[in-house]
């Protein structure tokens, strides 16, 4: 199983290199956006699709990762991967705290509590304006590319490694790493426990699965992904500011996961691609029809929302149910 995932990862890396080497700066930046959205959506997929916990607070957890990165880059001289790892660990800790509370809630209660989290977190940098930059946020300094790496990149590709391209590679490397880990996790014992708790919590408990611990574990893993995604987002935007983590971000992540097909990591990737590449298309169509830029920008969320509603309405067995049926069919055939 692991070998299969590693082979897939290797193939994915080849595709990433081919695509990134042939994209201009704008497209490269878009691919970075897709990468961090994919990481966040992947984490949310594990939580919602496999464990049945819906979180509307993942935007807030991304904010934790983003602010951690900004603060770490400002105060410490550490290699970028270490900073990303630290940002992830900090978000993981926050996620554990939230997860302990969330593990006891379900359905609308969990949604409401995480919604409160999404609304509450942007207020914190405003309150601690001195340390966290208030409304303007904290500028994020993109660290220099390590010399040997830049040389090696020049040697292989024959062009200078720009910081945009460097970040894109770093992001996609992270995506591949995270997805291999998540895929292994969900195929193994941990994932089986998650699914058991999602489908039949009473039976799972009777079978000796600790419900609370299993739910908290899913939340923590998912929070770690959100932290990484937030860190990469801060690097890509060169900024960690409250306006970047409004409630809309959390809701869009949920719709990305639903659009891509709840419960599958490929679906998370597809959802992230939609969130990244659909807005320019739809917005362009809107301005062609004579809408102002600000209004046309609303067409993208409008279409995600509509598709989300349609998916819920037209998948008669329910989202999770339809997917389970599909998986079942694949297994028996």
């Amino acid at each position: 199983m692991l070998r299969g995932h590693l082979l897939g990862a290797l193939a994915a890396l080849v595709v990433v290199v081919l695509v990134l080497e042939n994209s201009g700066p704008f497209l490269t930046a878009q691919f970075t956006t897709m990468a961090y959205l994919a990481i966040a959506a992947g984490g949310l997929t594990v939580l919602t699709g496999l464990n049945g916990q819906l979180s509307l607070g993942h935007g807030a957890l991304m904010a934790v990762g983003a602010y951690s990165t900004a603060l770490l880059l400002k105060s410490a001289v550490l290699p970028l991967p270490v900073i990303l790892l630290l940002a992830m660990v900090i978000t993981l800790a926050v996620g554990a705290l939230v997860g302990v509370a969330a593990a006891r809630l379900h359905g609308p209660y969990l949604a409401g509590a995480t919604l409160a989290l999404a609304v509450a977190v942007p207020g914190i940098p405003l309150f601690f304006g001195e340390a966290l930059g208030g409304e303007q946020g904290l500028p994020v300094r993109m660290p220099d590319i390590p010399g040997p790496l830049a040389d090696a990149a020049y040697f292989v590709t024959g062009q200078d490694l720009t910081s945009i391209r460097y970040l894109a590679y770093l992001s996609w490397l992270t995506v591949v790493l995270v997805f291999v880990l998540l895929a292994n996790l969900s195929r193994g014992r941990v994932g089986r426990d998650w699914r058991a708790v999602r489908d039949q919590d009473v039976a799972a408990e009777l079978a000796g699965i600790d419900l609370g611990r299993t739910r908290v574990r899913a939340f923590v893993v998912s929070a770690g992904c959100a932290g990484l995604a937030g860190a990469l987002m801060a690097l890509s935007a060169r900024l960690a500011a409250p306006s970047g983590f409004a409630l809309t971000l959390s809701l869009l992540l949920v719709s990305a996961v639903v659009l891509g097909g709840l419960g599958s990591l490929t679906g998370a990737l597809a959802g992230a691609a939609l969130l990244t590449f659909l807005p320019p298309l739809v917005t362009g169509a809107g301005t062609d029809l004579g809408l102002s830029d600000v209004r046309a920008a609303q067409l993208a969320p409008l279409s995600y929302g509509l598709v989300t509603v349609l998916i819920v309405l037209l998948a008669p067995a329910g989202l999770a149910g339809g997917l389970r049926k599909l998986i079942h069919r694949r297994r028996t055939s």
Partner: protein
Amino acid sequence: MQQLLTTALTGLTLGAVYAAFALALVLIWRATRIVNFAQAPMAVITTYLALVLIDAGWSYWAGFAVALVSGLVLGALVERFVVRFVDGKAELNAVILTLGLFIVLHALAALVFGSRYRSFPAPFGLTGFRVGDTTIALTGFGVFTIAAVGVVLIGLVVLFRGTDLGLRMRAAAFDREVARLLGVRVGRMLTLGWALAALTGSLSGLLIAGGGLVHPSYLDGVVVYGFVAAVLGGLDSPAGAVVGGVVLGLSLSLVSGYVGAELVPLAALVLLMVVLLLKPGGLFAGVRERRV
């Protein structure tokens, strides 16, 4: 002392608005076991309708009435043409559906009415009453806010406790199958329930907007406060929603007055977590235990 009084009066006024919003959530929860997270953008749309009419030269009250009526219609439409199709399906679906609706209606509001901040008029004074030499934090509009929520609450109580229609609505919410056997048009009652809830939500939106600024996201916080207020009182109890709203209004006003307005949503989160973890049935939980 002066500041405490100011804080309390502000909290009372805010609490009334949260109570109205919570009441709307509770009405829908009782009837359909759905927490309508889309209630905020629904109220945003009706408030904008009022604003457009008032800006076009209509009187405040005409705009007010149109907003309430359009809330009633919007609620009925949403129940009849969207929500009805997830009836009886998995819990997660209903939650995701109302979130999808949230995104759709929010984007629609911004698309149609624009995203800039616009000021919303108030029909009564916005300066505090004078008692002797000091100005207290109760404004004419504040009194109107409390009175309006009071009227809606009394209206709902009269409807549910005193009329035949209310009895049928309660029966439909309590046990659908039995109600249906007894000849209650359950579907119609559910539509009416959503319509009334949306009207109450619209009122809450209008009251928050009065004398302030509106923006497509101006109720995002209120959906959280309304939810917290409803959970405080127990999602099943309309009276609990009102008490929860007032308690929340007072607590948040204390935080805002003594700690900092930026931390108000965080305080609401903490309060929600404490209630959910210690007394999941709400402060007014009945005998029947509820699984959270």
